Protein backbone atom coordinates (compact mmCIF):
# COMPACT_ATOMS: atom_id res chain seq x y z
CA UNK A 1 0.00 0.00 0.00
CA UNK A 2 2.73 2.43 0.97
CA UNK A 3 4.89 1.10 -1.86
CA UNK A 4 2.14 1.86 -4.36
CA UNK A 5 1.94 5.46 -3.13
CA UNK A 6 5.72 5.92 -3.27
CA UNK A 7 6.15 4.37 -6.72
CA UNK A 8 3.14 6.27 -8.06
CA UNK A 9 4.44 9.47 -6.52
CA UNK A 10 7.93 9.06 -7.98
CA UNK A 11 6.69 8.15 -11.47
CA UNK A 12 4.19 11.00 -11.67
CA UNK A 13 6.70 13.45 -10.21
CA UNK A 14 9.27 12.53 -12.84
CA UNK A 15 6.62 13.00 -15.55
CA UNK A 16 5.76 16.45 -14.20
CA UNK A 17 9.44 17.41 -14.00
CA UNK A 18 10.11 16.30 -17.56
CA UNK A 19 7.20 18.41 -18.78
CA UNK A 20 8.56 21.39 -16.83
CA UNK A 21 12.02 20.85 -18.26
CA UNK A 22 10.63 20.64 -21.79
CA UNK A 23 8.65 23.84 -21.36
CA UNK A 24 11.75 25.59 -20.09
CA UNK A 25 13.95 23.98 -22.77
CA UNK A 26 11.98 25.72 -25.50
CA UNK A 27 12.02 29.28 -24.27
CA UNK A 28 8.71 31.01 -24.90
CA UNK A 29 10.72 33.76 -26.52
CA UNK A 30 12.66 32.71 -29.59
CA UNK A 31 15.77 34.78 -29.24
CA UNK A 32 17.12 36.46 -32.37
CA UNK A 33 20.83 36.69 -32.99
CA UNK A 34 23.13 37.21 -30.06
CA UNK A 35 25.13 40.03 -31.69
CA UNK A 36 24.26 43.47 -30.47
CA UNK A 37 24.93 45.85 -33.32
CA UNK A 38 23.98 44.06 -36.51
CA UNK A 39 20.60 45.71 -36.69
CA UNK A 40 19.63 44.39 -40.09
CA UNK A 41 20.08 40.74 -39.22
CA UNK A 42 18.23 41.14 -35.93
CA UNK A 43 15.23 42.74 -37.54
CA UNK A 44 15.37 40.23 -40.34
CA UNK A 45 15.12 37.29 -37.98
CA UNK A 46 12.41 38.85 -35.87
CA UNK A 47 9.53 36.45 -35.49
CA UNK A 48 6.42 36.86 -37.57
CA UNK A 49 4.26 37.70 -34.54
CA UNK A 50 6.38 40.68 -33.60
CA UNK A 51 6.58 41.69 -37.22
CA UNK A 52 2.85 42.13 -37.45
CA UNK A 53 2.73 44.26 -34.32
CA UNK A 54 5.56 46.33 -35.74
CA UNK A 55 3.71 46.99 -38.94
CA UNK A 56 0.55 48.20 -37.20
CA UNK A 57 2.67 50.51 -35.09
CA UNK A 58 4.50 51.81 -38.12
CA UNK A 59 1.20 52.47 -39.81
CA UNK A 60 0.33 55.06 -37.21
CA UNK A 61 3.70 56.40 -36.18
CA UNK A 62 5.53 56.57 -39.52
CA UNK A 63 7.03 53.61 -41.27
CA UNK A 64 10.66 54.14 -40.48
CA UNK A 65 11.33 55.19 -36.92
CA UNK A 66 15.03 54.86 -36.29
CA UNK A 67 17.52 55.94 -33.68
CA UNK A 68 18.14 55.41 -30.00
CA UNK A 69 15.61 56.20 -27.30
CA UNK A 70 16.39 56.30 -23.60
CA UNK A 71 13.74 55.17 -21.15
CA UNK A 72 13.03 56.87 -17.84
CA UNK A 73 15.05 55.68 -14.88
CA UNK A 74 12.84 53.50 -12.67
CA UNK A 75 13.48 53.35 -8.95
CA UNK A 76 13.39 49.87 -7.41
CA UNK A 77 14.16 48.89 -3.86
CA UNK A 78 17.53 47.64 -5.03
CA UNK A 79 18.49 50.72 -7.00
CA UNK A 80 17.53 52.51 -10.26
CA UNK A 81 17.05 50.73 -13.56
CA UNK A 82 17.29 52.47 -16.93
CA UNK A 83 17.48 51.10 -20.47
CA UNK A 84 18.06 52.51 -23.94
CA UNK A 85 16.63 50.97 -27.08
CA UNK A 86 18.02 51.09 -30.57
CA UNK A 87 15.33 51.23 -33.24
CA UNK A 88 15.83 50.64 -36.92
CA UNK A 89 12.95 50.72 -39.37
CA UNK A 90 10.32 50.58 -36.65
CA UNK A 91 11.86 47.54 -34.97
CA UNK A 92 13.75 47.29 -31.72
CA UNK A 93 17.14 45.97 -32.67
CA UNK A 94 18.95 46.33 -29.36
CA UNK A 95 18.31 47.03 -25.71
CA UNK A 96 21.15 48.42 -23.63
CA UNK A 97 20.98 48.61 -19.88
CA UNK A 98 22.32 51.99 -18.73
CA UNK A 99 21.66 51.38 -15.04
CA UNK A 100 20.80 48.17 -13.25
CA UNK A 101 20.04 47.34 -9.63
CA UNK A 102 23.29 47.78 -7.75
CA UNK A 103 22.14 48.02 -4.15
CA UNK A 104 24.68 45.44 -3.03
CA UNK A 105 26.85 42.65 -4.36
CA UNK A 106 23.94 40.32 -4.69
CA UNK A 107 21.88 42.82 -6.67
CA UNK A 108 24.72 43.48 -9.08
CA UNK A 109 25.08 39.78 -9.60
CA UNK A 110 21.36 39.32 -10.18
CA UNK A 111 21.39 42.18 -12.67
CA UNK A 112 24.28 40.75 -14.61
CA UNK A 113 22.52 37.43 -14.81
CA UNK A 114 19.08 38.79 -15.66
CA UNK A 115 19.99 41.51 -18.15
CA UNK A 116 20.89 39.24 -21.11
CA UNK A 117 17.72 37.20 -20.60
CA UNK A 118 15.52 40.29 -20.37
CA UNK A 119 17.20 41.73 -23.47
CA UNK A 120 16.50 38.60 -25.48
CA UNK A 121 12.92 38.49 -24.31
CA UNK A 122 12.41 42.14 -25.24
CA UNK A 123 13.95 41.71 -28.69
CA UNK A 124 11.75 38.71 -29.37
CA UNK A 125 8.56 40.25 -28.05
CA UNK A 126 9.26 43.70 -29.58
CA UNK A 127 7.41 45.11 -26.59
CA UNK A 128 7.70 45.51 -22.83
CA UNK A 129 5.25 42.70 -22.06
CA UNK A 130 7.88 40.14 -21.16
CA UNK A 131 8.14 37.56 -18.42
CA UNK A 132 10.06 38.34 -15.24
CA UNK A 133 13.33 36.47 -14.75
CA UNK A 134 13.41 33.91 -11.97
CA UNK A 135 15.25 35.37 -9.01
CA UNK A 136 15.31 38.90 -10.39
CA UNK A 137 11.78 40.16 -9.85
CA UNK A 138 12.61 43.77 -9.05
CA UNK A 139 15.21 44.08 -11.77
CA UNK A 140 12.68 42.67 -14.23
CA UNK A 141 9.95 45.07 -13.15
CA UNK A 142 12.26 48.09 -13.38
CA UNK A 143 13.55 46.89 -16.71
CA UNK A 144 10.10 46.54 -18.26
CA UNK A 145 8.93 49.90 -16.90
CA UNK A 146 11.94 51.73 -18.32
CA UNK A 147 11.66 49.76 -21.55
CA UNK A 148 8.01 50.76 -21.94
CA UNK A 149 8.85 54.44 -21.52
CA UNK A 150 11.60 54.12 -24.15
CA UNK A 151 9.15 52.44 -26.53
CA UNK A 152 6.63 55.22 -25.88
CA UNK A 153 9.26 57.84 -26.69
CA UNK A 154 10.09 56.06 -29.91
CA UNK A 155 6.39 56.06 -30.73
CA UNK A 156 6.45 52.41 -31.68
Amino acid at each position, binding site marked *: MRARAVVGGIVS*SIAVLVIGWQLGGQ*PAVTAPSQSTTSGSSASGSGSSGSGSSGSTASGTGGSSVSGTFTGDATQTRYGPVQVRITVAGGKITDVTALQLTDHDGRSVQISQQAAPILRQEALAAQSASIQAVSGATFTSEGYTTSLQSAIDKAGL
Partner: protein
Amino acid sequence: MIDTARPTAHPLAAAPATEPLAVAARRRDRSRRRRSATTDLLGIFAWISAAVAVALWLASPGSHSVVGIGGWLTDAGIVAGLIATDLVLVMLVLAARVPLVDRTFGQDTAIAVHRSLGKPVLYLLLAHGALLTLGYGASAGTGPIAETIALFSTPDMPLAYLGLGLFVAVVVSSLVAVRRRLPYEAWHVIHLLSYAAVLVALPHMLSAGSVLAAGTWQRAYWIALYVLALGLIAVYRFAVPFVVTVRHRIRVVGVEPIAPGVVSIHLAGRDLDRLGARGGQYGVWRFWTATTWWYAHPVSFSAVPGRDRARITVRDLGAGSSRLGRIRPGAFVSLEGPYGLFTSRARTAPYLALVASGIGITPVRALLEDTDLRPGEATVLLRGSDAQQQYLWRETADLAATTGSRLFAMVGHRARSRATWMPEEDLRRGVTLLSVFPRLLESDLYVCGPRAWSDLVVREARLAGVPEHQIHQERFES
Protein backbone atom coordinates in the same frame (compact mmCIF):
# COMPACT_ATOMS: atom_id res chain seq x y z
CA MET B 1 -25.55 2.32 38.19
CA ILE B 2 -24.20 4.99 35.90
CA ASP B 3 -26.32 7.37 33.97
CA THR B 4 -25.00 6.24 30.64
CA ALA B 5 -26.04 7.71 27.37
CA ARG B 6 -28.12 5.39 25.22
CA PRO B 7 -26.73 4.05 21.99
CA THR B 8 -28.19 5.75 18.97
CA ALA B 9 -28.92 4.61 15.49
CA HIS B 10 -26.42 6.08 13.07
CA PRO B 11 -27.83 6.85 9.67
CA LEU B 12 -24.58 5.63 8.13
CA ALA B 13 -24.43 2.36 10.02
CA ALA B 14 -26.88 0.78 7.63
CA ALA B 15 -25.74 -2.76 8.31
CA PRO B 16 -28.31 -4.54 10.47
CA ALA B 17 -27.27 -7.13 13.04
CA THR B 18 -28.51 -9.86 10.78
CA GLU B 19 -26.29 -8.93 7.85
CA PRO B 20 -24.96 -12.15 6.33
CA LEU B 21 -21.26 -12.78 6.85
CA ALA B 22 -20.48 -12.81 3.14
CA VAL B 23 -22.23 -9.48 2.60
CA ALA B 24 -20.41 -7.92 5.54
CA ALA B 25 -17.10 -9.26 4.24
CA ARG B 26 -17.71 -7.77 0.80
CA ARG B 27 -18.70 -4.43 2.28
CA ARG B 28 -15.61 -4.32 4.49
CA ASP B 29 -13.36 -5.36 1.65
CA ARG B 30 -14.75 -2.59 -0.56
CA SER B 31 -14.37 -0.03 2.19
CA ARG B 32 -10.78 -1.12 2.87
CA ARG B 33 -9.86 -0.94 -0.81
CA ARG B 34 -11.44 2.48 -1.10
CA ARG B 35 -9.57 3.80 1.93
CA SER B 36 -6.31 2.28 0.75
CA ALA B 37 -6.75 3.77 -2.73
CA THR B 38 -7.59 7.19 -1.31
CA THR B 39 -4.57 7.03 1.01
CA ASP B 40 -2.27 6.26 -1.92
CA LEU B 41 -3.87 8.94 -4.05
CA LEU B 42 -3.33 11.57 -1.33
CA GLY B 43 0.29 10.42 -1.03
CA ILE B 44 0.77 10.76 -4.79
CA PHE B 45 -0.79 14.24 -4.68
CA ALA B 46 1.77 15.24 -2.07
CA TRP B 47 4.59 14.07 -4.39
CA ILE B 48 3.10 15.84 -7.38
CA SER B 49 2.63 19.08 -5.46
CA ALA B 50 6.40 19.25 -4.92
CA ALA B 51 7.15 18.15 -8.49
CA VAL B 52 4.88 20.83 -9.96
CA ALA B 53 6.62 23.47 -7.84
CA VAL B 54 9.99 22.45 -9.30
CA ALA B 55 8.58 21.99 -12.83
CA LEU B 56 7.09 25.50 -12.88
CA TRP B 57 10.44 26.89 -11.81
CA LEU B 58 12.15 24.87 -14.57
CA ALA B 59 9.68 26.31 -17.06
CA SER B 60 10.38 29.89 -16.00
CA PRO B 61 12.88 32.01 -17.95
CA GLY B 62 16.41 32.03 -16.62
CA SER B 63 16.31 28.66 -14.85
CA HIS B 64 18.07 26.90 -17.72
CA SER B 65 20.97 29.29 -18.07
CA VAL B 66 23.22 27.67 -15.52
CA VAL B 67 26.60 29.35 -15.37
CA GLY B 68 29.49 27.62 -13.63
CA ILE B 69 29.66 25.97 -10.25
CA GLY B 70 27.96 28.94 -8.60
CA GLY B 71 25.00 28.54 -10.92
CA TRP B 72 24.63 24.87 -10.07
CA LEU B 73 24.83 25.54 -6.35
CA THR B 74 22.30 28.35 -6.65
CA ASP B 75 19.87 26.21 -8.63
CA ALA B 76 20.21 23.31 -6.18
CA GLY B 77 19.50 25.76 -3.37
CA ILE B 78 16.40 27.10 -5.13
CA VAL B 79 15.07 23.57 -5.71
CA ALA B 80 15.72 22.64 -2.07
CA GLY B 81 13.80 25.72 -0.96
CA LEU B 82 10.87 24.99 -3.29
CA ILE B 83 10.55 21.39 -2.09
CA ALA B 84 10.94 22.38 1.56
CA THR B 85 8.24 25.04 1.28
CA ASP B 86 5.91 22.58 -0.40
CA LEU B 87 6.54 20.01 2.33
CA VAL B 88 5.91 22.59 5.05
CA LEU B 89 2.51 23.20 3.48
CA VAL B 90 1.90 19.42 3.29
CA MET B 91 2.74 19.25 7.01
CA LEU B 92 0.22 21.99 7.72
CA VAL B 93 -2.46 20.04 5.84
CA LEU B 94 -1.59 16.87 7.76
CA ALA B 95 -2.01 18.72 11.07
CA ALA B 96 -5.22 20.43 9.98
CA ARG B 97 -7.49 17.55 11.06
CA VAL B 98 -9.17 17.39 7.68
CA PRO B 99 -12.14 14.97 7.84
CA LEU B 100 -11.08 13.19 4.64
CA VAL B 101 -7.65 12.51 6.14
CA ASP B 102 -9.10 11.32 9.44
CA ARG B 103 -11.58 9.03 7.68
CA THR B 104 -9.10 7.45 5.28
CA PHE B 105 -5.97 6.89 7.34
CA GLY B 106 -6.62 8.40 10.70
CA GLN B 107 -5.43 11.58 12.34
CA ASP B 108 -2.78 9.72 14.37
CA THR B 109 -1.20 8.33 11.19
CA ALA B 110 -1.38 11.81 9.69
CA ILE B 111 0.49 13.19 12.71
CA ALA B 112 3.03 10.35 12.44
CA VAL B 113 3.70 11.38 8.82
CA HIS B 114 3.78 15.04 9.89
CA ARG B 115 6.46 14.15 12.47
CA SER B 116 8.49 12.08 10.03
CA LEU B 117 8.63 15.07 7.65
CA GLY B 118 9.93 17.49 10.29
CA LYS B 119 13.61 16.66 10.11
CA PRO B 120 13.86 16.23 6.30
CA VAL B 121 12.20 19.61 5.85
CA LEU B 122 14.63 21.24 8.25
CA TYR B 123 17.58 19.69 6.40
CA LEU B 124 16.18 20.96 3.09
CA LEU B 125 15.75 24.45 4.53
CA LEU B 126 19.30 24.47 5.90
CA ALA B 127 20.55 23.18 2.53
CA HIS B 128 18.54 25.93 0.80
CA GLY B 129 20.32 28.58 2.86
CA ALA B 130 23.76 27.00 2.65
CA LEU B 131 23.65 26.22 -1.10
CA LEU B 132 22.43 29.67 -2.05
CA THR B 133 25.05 31.34 0.12
CA LEU B 134 27.80 29.22 -1.43
CA GLY B 135 26.35 29.63 -4.92
CA TYR B 136 26.07 33.41 -4.70
CA GLY B 137 29.52 33.51 -3.13
CA ALA B 138 31.02 31.39 -5.91
CA SER B 139 29.43 33.58 -8.60
CA ALA B 140 30.54 36.80 -6.96
CA GLY B 141 33.93 35.48 -5.90
CA THR B 142 33.33 36.14 -2.22
CA GLY B 143 33.57 33.75 0.70
CA PRO B 144 30.55 32.31 2.46
CA ILE B 145 30.90 34.63 5.45
CA ALA B 146 31.14 37.78 3.36
CA GLU B 147 28.20 36.52 1.32
CA THR B 148 26.14 35.89 4.48
CA ILE B 149 26.81 39.44 5.60
CA ALA B 150 25.77 40.69 2.16
CA LEU B 151 22.59 38.62 2.32
CA PHE B 152 21.78 40.02 5.75
CA SER B 153 21.84 43.52 4.31
CA THR B 154 19.43 42.48 1.54
CA PRO B 155 15.83 43.47 2.26
CA ASP B 156 13.61 40.71 3.71
CA MET B 157 16.54 38.38 4.27
CA PRO B 158 16.85 39.01 8.02
CA LEU B 159 13.20 37.88 8.26
CA ALA B 160 14.01 34.77 6.27
CA TYR B 161 16.87 33.96 8.68
CA LEU B 162 14.43 34.51 11.55
CA GLY B 163 12.03 32.05 9.91
CA LEU B 164 14.83 29.49 9.58
CA GLY B 165 15.69 29.98 13.26
CA LEU B 166 12.05 29.45 14.22
CA PHE B 167 11.89 26.24 12.18
CA VAL B 168 15.02 24.99 13.92
CA ALA B 169 13.43 25.75 17.31
CA VAL B 170 10.19 23.99 16.35
CA VAL B 171 11.94 20.85 15.09
CA VAL B 172 14.42 20.68 17.98
CA SER B 173 11.62 21.06 20.54
CA SER B 174 9.81 18.18 18.84
CA LEU B 175 12.74 15.75 18.97
CA VAL B 176 11.68 12.85 21.17
CA ALA B 177 14.47 13.40 23.69
CA VAL B 178 13.73 17.11 24.03
CA ARG B 179 9.97 16.89 23.94
CA ARG B 180 9.92 14.41 26.81
CA ARG B 181 11.63 16.97 29.06
CA LEU B 182 9.42 19.88 28.02
CA PRO B 183 6.06 20.57 29.60
CA TYR B 184 3.32 20.15 27.00
CA GLU B 185 2.45 23.84 27.16
CA ALA B 186 6.02 24.93 26.38
CA TRP B 187 6.20 22.55 23.43
CA HIS B 188 2.82 23.74 22.19
CA VAL B 189 3.78 27.43 22.31
CA ILE B 190 7.04 26.71 20.46
CA HIS B 191 5.10 24.67 17.92
CA LEU B 192 2.70 27.53 17.27
CA LEU B 193 5.78 29.50 16.14
CA SER B 194 5.75 27.42 12.96
CA TYR B 195 2.86 29.59 11.73
CA ALA B 196 5.08 32.64 12.32
CA ALA B 197 7.94 30.87 10.56
CA VAL B 198 5.79 30.24 7.49
CA LEU B 199 4.68 33.88 7.40
CA VAL B 200 8.07 35.58 7.92
CA ALA B 201 9.55 33.39 5.19
CA LEU B 202 7.06 34.79 2.65
CA PRO B 203 8.61 38.26 1.99
CA HIS B 204 11.96 36.91 0.81
CA MET B 205 10.13 34.55 -1.54
CA LEU B 206 8.53 37.66 -3.03
CA SER B 207 11.62 39.81 -3.35
CA ALA B 208 14.78 37.70 -3.49
CA GLY B 209 13.04 34.77 -5.13
CA SER B 210 10.52 35.17 -7.87
CA VAL B 211 8.04 32.40 -7.14
CA LEU B 212 5.39 35.03 -6.55
CA ALA B 213 6.35 37.35 -9.41
CA ALA B 214 3.26 38.91 -10.92
CA GLY B 215 1.71 37.22 -13.92
CA THR B 216 3.50 33.89 -13.67
CA TRP B 217 2.09 30.40 -13.25
CA GLN B 218 4.35 30.01 -10.26
CA ARG B 219 2.52 32.85 -8.54
CA ALA B 220 -0.89 31.28 -9.20
CA TYR B 221 0.34 27.88 -8.05
CA TRP B 222 1.94 29.04 -4.82
CA ILE B 223 -0.97 31.26 -3.92
CA ALA B 224 -3.27 28.27 -4.44
CA LEU B 225 -1.07 26.08 -2.22
CA TYR B 226 -0.93 28.68 0.56
CA VAL B 227 -4.66 29.34 0.39
CA LEU B 228 -5.35 25.60 0.49
CA ALA B 229 -3.06 24.84 3.44
CA LEU B 230 -3.90 27.88 5.56
CA GLY B 231 -7.56 27.62 4.56
CA LEU B 232 -7.81 24.01 5.73
CA ILE B 233 -6.19 25.01 9.03
CA ALA B 234 -8.57 27.95 9.44
CA VAL B 235 -11.64 25.89 8.60
CA TYR B 236 -10.97 22.62 10.40
CA ARG B 237 -8.86 23.76 13.34
CA PHE B 238 -10.80 26.93 14.14
CA ALA B 239 -14.10 27.46 12.30
CA VAL B 240 -15.57 23.94 12.52
CA PRO B 241 -14.74 23.42 16.23
CA PHE B 242 -16.21 26.85 16.94
CA VAL B 243 -19.44 25.99 15.12
CA VAL B 244 -19.63 22.59 16.82
CA THR B 245 -19.12 24.19 20.21
CA VAL B 246 -21.71 26.89 19.66
CA ARG B 247 -24.24 24.53 18.11
CA HIS B 248 -24.10 21.83 20.76
CA ARG B 249 -23.56 24.00 23.87
CA ILE B 250 -21.90 21.30 25.92
CA ARG B 251 -21.76 21.70 29.69
CA VAL B 252 -20.48 19.57 32.54
CA VAL B 253 -23.37 18.11 34.53
CA GLY B 254 -21.44 15.88 36.86
CA VAL B 255 -17.98 14.63 37.74
CA GLU B 256 -18.04 11.10 39.06
CA PRO B 257 -14.92 9.58 40.63
CA ILE B 258 -14.86 5.92 39.61
CA ALA B 259 -11.44 4.99 41.00
CA PRO B 260 -8.52 6.85 42.58
CA GLY B 261 -7.38 9.37 39.97
CA VAL B 262 -10.08 8.44 37.47
CA VAL B 263 -13.23 10.44 36.83
CA SER B 264 -16.15 10.11 34.48
CA ILE B 265 -17.28 13.52 33.29
CA HIS B 266 -20.96 13.61 32.39
CA LEU B 267 -21.84 16.17 29.77
CA ALA B 268 -25.10 17.63 28.57
CA GLY B 269 -25.72 19.45 25.32
CA ARG B 270 -28.03 19.85 22.36
CA ASP B 271 -28.34 17.19 19.65
CA LEU B 272 -25.20 15.40 20.76
CA ASP B 273 -26.23 12.39 18.69
CA ARG B 274 -25.71 14.61 15.65
CA LEU B 275 -22.03 15.11 16.48
CA GLY B 276 -21.61 11.95 14.44
CA ALA B 277 -19.39 10.43 17.13
CA ARG B 278 -18.88 6.70 16.67
CA GLY B 279 -17.90 4.35 19.45
CA GLY B 280 -14.11 4.43 19.85
CA GLN B 281 -13.64 8.03 18.72
CA TYR B 282 -12.19 10.84 20.79
CA GLY B 283 -12.61 14.56 21.07
CA VAL B 284 -10.23 17.31 22.06
CA TRP B 285 -11.95 18.92 25.02
CA ARG B 286 -11.42 22.25 26.67
CA PHE B 287 -13.10 23.01 29.96
CA TRP B 288 -13.67 26.72 30.45
CA THR B 289 -12.82 27.12 34.12
CA ALA B 290 -10.17 29.38 35.62
CA THR B 291 -7.66 26.56 36.06
CA THR B 292 -8.33 24.42 32.99
CA TRP B 293 -9.17 26.68 30.03
CA TRP B 294 -5.62 26.84 28.68
CA TYR B 295 -5.26 23.13 28.09
CA ALA B 296 -7.18 21.00 25.59
CA HIS B 297 -7.47 17.32 26.49
CA PRO B 298 -7.71 14.56 23.90
CA VAL B 299 -10.14 12.14 25.59
CA SER B 300 -12.20 9.25 24.21
CA PHE B 301 -15.94 9.05 24.58
CA SER B 302 -16.53 6.30 27.12
CA ALA B 303 -20.08 5.83 25.82
CA VAL B 304 -21.77 6.58 22.53
CA PRO B 305 -23.37 10.04 22.94
CA GLY B 306 -27.15 10.13 23.30
CA ARG B 307 -29.42 12.95 22.20
CA ASP B 308 -28.53 15.31 25.04
CA ARG B 309 -26.02 13.35 27.11
CA ALA B 310 -22.43 12.27 26.61
CA ARG B 311 -19.75 10.86 28.85
CA ILE B 312 -15.98 10.84 28.82
CA THR B 313 -13.69 9.12 31.31
CA VAL B 314 -10.27 10.51 32.21
CA ARG B 315 -7.31 9.35 34.25
CA ASP B 316 -4.89 11.97 35.53
CA LEU B 317 -2.05 11.18 33.16
CA GLY B 318 -0.72 14.71 32.96
CA ALA B 319 -0.50 17.92 34.89
CA GLY B 320 -3.64 19.23 33.22
CA SER B 321 -5.89 16.24 33.64
CA SER B 322 -5.52 16.02 37.43
CA ARG B 323 -7.36 19.34 37.64
CA LEU B 324 -10.29 17.88 35.72
CA GLY B 325 -11.48 16.07 38.83
CA ARG B 326 -12.23 19.42 40.46
CA ILE B 327 -14.38 20.83 37.67
CA ARG B 328 -17.76 22.03 38.90
CA PRO B 329 -21.02 21.15 37.18
CA GLY B 330 -22.10 23.91 34.83
CA ALA B 331 -18.66 24.48 33.37
CA PHE B 332 -18.74 25.33 29.67
CA VAL B 333 -17.00 22.87 27.34
CA SER B 334 -15.64 23.36 23.84
CA LEU B 335 -15.04 20.38 21.58
CA GLU B 336 -12.81 19.69 18.59
CA GLY B 337 -13.82 16.45 16.96
CA PRO B 338 -14.93 13.73 17.10
CA TYR B 339 -11.85 12.18 15.51
CA GLY B 340 -10.35 8.74 15.11
CA LEU B 341 -10.47 5.54 13.11
CA PHE B 342 -10.71 3.28 16.19
CA THR B 343 -14.27 2.45 15.13
CA SER B 344 -16.20 -0.38 13.55
CA ARG B 345 -15.99 1.57 10.28
CA ALA B 346 -12.35 0.53 9.98
CA ARG B 347 -13.12 -3.17 10.25
CA THR B 348 -11.83 -5.54 7.60
CA ALA B 349 -12.35 -9.04 9.08
CA PRO B 350 -15.34 -11.20 10.16
CA TYR B 351 -14.43 -11.43 13.86
CA LEU B 352 -13.55 -8.85 16.45
CA ALA B 353 -10.82 -9.01 19.12
CA LEU B 354 -10.73 -6.15 21.62
CA VAL B 355 -7.83 -5.67 24.04
CA ALA B 356 -7.78 -2.88 26.58
CA SER B 357 -5.51 -1.99 29.44
CA GLY B 358 -6.22 0.50 32.23
CA ILE B 359 -7.92 3.67 31.02
CA GLY B 360 -7.59 2.30 27.47
CA ILE B 361 -10.92 0.65 28.14
CA THR B 362 -12.87 3.81 27.31
CA PRO B 363 -12.77 3.61 23.47
CA VAL B 364 -13.03 -0.19 23.61
CA ARG B 365 -16.17 0.01 25.72
CA ALA B 366 -17.77 2.58 23.40
CA LEU B 367 -16.71 0.55 20.36
CA LEU B 368 -18.36 -2.56 21.80
CA GLU B 369 -21.51 -0.52 22.39
CA ASP B 370 -21.56 0.87 18.86
CA THR B 371 -20.93 -2.31 16.86
CA ASP B 372 -23.62 -4.62 15.51
CA LEU B 373 -22.42 -8.03 16.58
CA ARG B 374 -23.49 -11.59 16.02
CA PRO B 375 -23.27 -13.75 19.15
CA GLY B 376 -19.72 -15.07 19.37
CA GLU B 377 -18.36 -12.49 16.89
CA ALA B 378 -16.46 -10.45 19.45
CA THR B 379 -14.04 -11.39 22.20
CA VAL B 380 -12.87 -8.85 24.78
CA LEU B 381 -9.73 -9.00 26.90
CA LEU B 382 -9.46 -6.50 29.75
CA ARG B 383 -6.28 -5.94 31.67
CA GLY B 384 -5.62 -4.00 34.86
CA SER B 385 -2.49 -3.67 36.91
CA ASP B 386 -4.43 -4.30 40.11
CA ALA B 387 -7.95 -4.63 41.46
CA GLN B 388 -8.33 -0.82 41.53
CA GLN B 389 -7.63 -0.46 37.84
CA GLN B 390 -10.82 -2.16 36.70
CA TYR B 391 -12.45 0.99 35.35
CA LEU B 392 -15.83 0.48 33.66
CA TRP B 393 -15.36 -3.31 33.76
CA ARG B 394 -18.86 -3.90 35.09
CA GLU B 395 -20.62 -2.06 32.27
CA THR B 396 -18.29 -3.57 29.69
CA ALA B 397 -19.22 -7.01 31.02
CA ASP B 398 -22.91 -6.09 30.71
CA LEU B 399 -22.37 -4.99 27.11
CA ALA B 400 -20.49 -8.22 26.39
CA ALA B 401 -23.40 -10.21 27.82
CA THR B 402 -26.05 -8.41 25.75
CA THR B 403 -24.06 -8.73 22.52
CA GLY B 404 -23.12 -12.37 23.13
CA SER B 405 -19.43 -11.57 23.28
CA ARG B 406 -16.84 -13.46 25.31
CA LEU B 407 -14.98 -11.53 27.98
CA PHE B 408 -11.64 -12.30 29.62
CA ALA B 409 -9.90 -10.44 32.40
CA MET B 410 -6.23 -10.30 33.24
CA VAL B 411 -5.20 -8.66 36.51
CA GLY B 412 -1.67 -8.08 37.68
CA HIS B 413 1.43 -6.04 36.97
CA ARG B 414 3.36 -6.83 33.84
CA ALA B 415 6.04 -9.50 34.28
CA ARG B 416 9.47 -7.97 34.75
CA SER B 417 11.35 -11.04 33.54
CA ARG B 418 11.03 -10.15 29.86
CA ALA B 419 9.33 -7.80 27.45
CA THR B 420 5.74 -8.98 27.65
CA TRP B 421 2.32 -7.42 27.85
CA MET B 422 1.11 -10.07 30.34
CA PRO B 423 1.45 -10.61 34.08
CA GLU B 424 3.92 -13.27 35.22
CA GLU B 425 1.17 -15.69 36.17
CA ASP B 426 -0.53 -15.69 32.78
CA LEU B 427 2.84 -15.99 31.11
CA ARG B 428 3.54 -19.14 33.11
CA ARG B 429 0.12 -20.61 32.30
CA GLY B 430 1.07 -20.33 28.65
CA VAL B 431 -1.47 -17.65 27.71
CA THR B 432 -0.95 -16.14 24.27
CA LEU B 433 -3.00 -13.87 22.04
CA LEU B 434 -4.01 -16.95 20.05
CA SER B 435 -5.18 -18.82 23.15
CA VAL B 436 -7.42 -15.89 24.12
CA PHE B 437 -8.55 -15.20 20.56
CA PRO B 438 -8.60 -18.55 18.72
CA ARG B 439 -9.89 -16.79 15.58
CA LEU B 440 -7.27 -14.05 15.81
CA LEU B 441 -6.20 -14.42 12.17
CA GLU B 442 -9.77 -13.78 10.99
CA SER B 443 -10.30 -10.95 13.49
CA ASP B 444 -9.90 -7.23 13.58
CA LEU B 445 -7.64 -6.61 16.56
CA TYR B 446 -8.33 -3.35 18.41
CA VAL B 447 -5.73 -2.53 21.04
CA CYS B 448 -5.88 0.44 23.39
CA GLY B 449 -3.55 1.07 26.29
CA PRO B 450 -0.24 2.62 27.26
CA ARG B 451 2.18 2.89 24.35
CA ALA B 452 4.81 0.40 25.54
CA TRP B 453 2.19 -2.19 26.47
CA SER B 454 0.09 -1.93 23.34
CA ASP B 455 3.18 -2.05 21.11
CA LEU B 456 4.01 -5.43 22.68
CA VAL B 457 0.48 -6.72 22.02
CA VAL B 458 0.69 -5.60 18.42
CA ARG B 459 4.14 -7.15 18.03
CA GLU B 460 2.78 -10.53 19.15
CA ALA B 461 -0.15 -10.18 16.75
CA ARG B 462 2.21 -9.45 13.85
CA LEU B 463 4.36 -12.45 14.76
CA ALA B 464 1.22 -14.59 14.84
CA GLY B 465 0.56 -13.49 11.26
CA VAL B 466 -2.27 -10.98 11.62
CA PRO B 467 -2.32 -8.83 8.47
CA GLU B 468 -1.49 -5.18 9.02
CA HIS B 469 -4.90 -3.91 7.92
CA GLN B 470 -6.57 -5.94 10.68
CA ILE B 471 -4.57 -4.22 13.44
CA HIS B 472 -6.08 -1.07 14.93
CA GLN B 473 -4.14 0.62 17.66
CA GLU B 474 -4.88 3.59 19.88
CA ARG B 475 -1.98 4.49 22.15
CA PHE B 476 -1.47 7.00 24.87
CA GLU B 477 1.60 7.95 26.86
CA SER B 478 1.58 6.54 30.37
